[in-house]
């Protein structure tokens, strides 16, 4: 009754607008959907098409440094200049294939380590009693308050030859000369796992807190040991959290540029760096655009696969 009363007291202009929108066939529901759609259109789809269009051009010395899409001939005819040459070039040079493979490998290994480290932490936090749980959760989120760049620089201070780790080990007499850790793949893994660990923990935590304790009790009552209960009940039920966490780590890691640039060595080959070289050193925007498009496809494919895995689970 009170809801109806409110509706009656709505001001006239609002009713007028609602009426006008109804006339035009625009419902409030559509408006709500339209805003994020518009956002995606302007900030994702449009740049993607600009990128796609540049990837079909050819690099020239000009401003901007690529051929125009349309060229007007002397007789006024309009010709479209586009070629897949840049994509063919990516296929013929082993560098790009190696860079993609190497990026996927680094992202995959980092994701596995983040999962192995993140799962027990998320599990522990989800099982912790309330006041402690909030504090633990805060400790996971707290590092975000410092700039990501500063935290990677802090790792440089730890891993350097005369950094904290080597100096401690030397003063303890465990090693004689410093272990080279900076400028190695090892440092890149540390950097990526450290940086993206919270992205693994948070979705896992959200999933594990919702886990129904009665199911675990039931498993126990039916004679399952804690280990068996974990692998037959907890783990399968937390799969959506695992998938979400893995996606949140894998996707940014595959295109990572900053961490390998700061911590990695000359042998660390990642697609982010190749992209930088094409854009800045070769000044070849079209090839850089093609590299980016291929990378986008490579990233979208595993997301869709994981999404379908999740959907199948949801249906079953």
């Amino acid at each position, binding site marked *: 009754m009170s809801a109806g009363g409110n509706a009656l007291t709505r001001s006239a202009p609002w009713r007028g607008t609602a009426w006008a929108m109804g006339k035009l066939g625009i419902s409030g529901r559509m408006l709500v959907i339209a805003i994020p759609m518009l956002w995606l259109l302007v900030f994702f789809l449009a740049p993607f098409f600009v990128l796609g269009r540049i990837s079909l051009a050819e690099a020239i010395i000009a401003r901007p440094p690529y051929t125009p899409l349309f060229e007007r001939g002397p007789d006024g005819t309009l010709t479209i200049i586009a070629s897949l040459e840049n994509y063919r070039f990516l296929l013929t040079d082993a560098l790009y294939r190696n860079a993609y493979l190497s990026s996927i490998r680094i992202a995959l290994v980092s994701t596995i380590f983040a999962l192995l480290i993140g799962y027990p932490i998320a599990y522990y936090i989800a099982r912790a009693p309330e006041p402690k749980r909030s504090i633990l959760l805060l400790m996971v989120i707290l590092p975000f308050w410092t700039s990501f760049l500063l935290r990677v620089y802090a790792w440089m201070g730890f891993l350097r030859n*005369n950094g904290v780790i080597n100096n401690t080990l030397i003063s303890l007499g465990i090693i004689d000369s410093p272990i080279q850790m900076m400028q190695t793949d090892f440092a890149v893994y540390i950097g990526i796992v450290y940086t993206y660990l919270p992205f693994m923990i948070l979705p896992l935590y959200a999933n594990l807190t919702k886990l129904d304790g009665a199911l675990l009790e039931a498993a126990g009552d039916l004679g399952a040991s804690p280990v068996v209960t974990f692998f037959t009940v907890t783990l399968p039920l937390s799969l959506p959290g695992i998938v979400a966490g893995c996606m949140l780590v894998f996707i940014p890691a595959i295109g990572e540029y900053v961490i390998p640039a700061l911590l990695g060595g000359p042998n660390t080959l990642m697609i982010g760096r190749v992209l930088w070289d094409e854009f800045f050193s070769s000044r070849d925007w079209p090839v850089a655009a093609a590299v980016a498009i291929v990378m986008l496809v490579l990233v979208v494919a595993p997301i869709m696969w994981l999404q379908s895995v999740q959907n199948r689970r949801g249906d079953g």
Partner: protein
Amino acid sequence: MTPNRILVAAGAAIAMQAGAAAADTVNVFNWSDYITDEVLEQFTAETGIAVNYDVYDSNDTLEARLLAGSSGFDVVVPTATFLQRQIAAGVYQPLNRDLLPNLDNMDPALMAAAANHDPGNEHAVIYMWGTTGIGYNIDAVAERLGEDFEVDTWDMIFDPEIAGQLADCGISWLDSPTDMFPAAFAWMGLDPQSTDAADFEAAAEMMKGVRDTVRYFHSSQYISDLANGETCVAVGWSGDVLQAADRAEEAGQGINVWYAIPREGAMQWFDMLGIPADAPNPEAAHAFINFIMKPEVAAAITNYVWFPNANAAAFELVDEDIRTDPAIYPTPEVTETLFTGVTYDSRTDRTVTRLWTSVRTGQ
């Protein structure tokens, strides 16, 4: 007022403000650690033009901004080899010599060398110049190669045997193919200005043979690493290495860094002051460039950044220990061995970048 009218009025007000701001501001985009703040303050005090100063650390970054267009900068400082290509792309406007009376102060020989990249010096004047050589930790190198080893040689970088003895204390190379390939050519006895694909392949093959001795490829990290002893040998730019030497001395950790110009030949490069074609305030840009060419201003910058200027009238005003230092102002005999860079065409550029990636990554 209807909402539309308000919007239009607001827009006009913003436009007027932007116009007013542009009239007395010059937007300068220069290399990091490449000027002293006093010079900028003095410029504003003398001309009433405020300076909006921003920095970059590679020619590539600058070039990407310029080629994208509407960079919003009035004065930029590319290296001459990059300037040449950017002029071809139509990035710069010709200088108005009537607004630059201080051009008379410039060293004619150096300006003639820069004219190889900018015929008639129509688009740019030299800001500072320098050489690409070797920064080294005096004690660490002497310990490994003996006190008598003469360090002014690319052997320290390219000879697998000698570089192998230095590798444990850390060697870094510039991540800049346009500096590294000419240096490799000089060591191999090839023409450092070669644009022959076969020469690039040979040099890349040679560099791949010693890349195991390289700890990293980077164009600015080596300054602090040399200074705190993290590395002991670096291919670097003269003034940057000397800044590392200065920092090491200030730190007082007993680390002594110095700079050597290899006797096989080293690159002499010029950083040029230019005005983009779409600069919002070209008059202020000319005023700024003219101000930099004042002898006392050029000398003050050199005294601070330890890179030589190309201002003949400023030479006597530079601190004596800087102007007599052969690492900063090379002796005439050494100057004979220096060579200038060349601008590669697009195809050579692609070859060079690809080969450099293969050197850097071993792929």
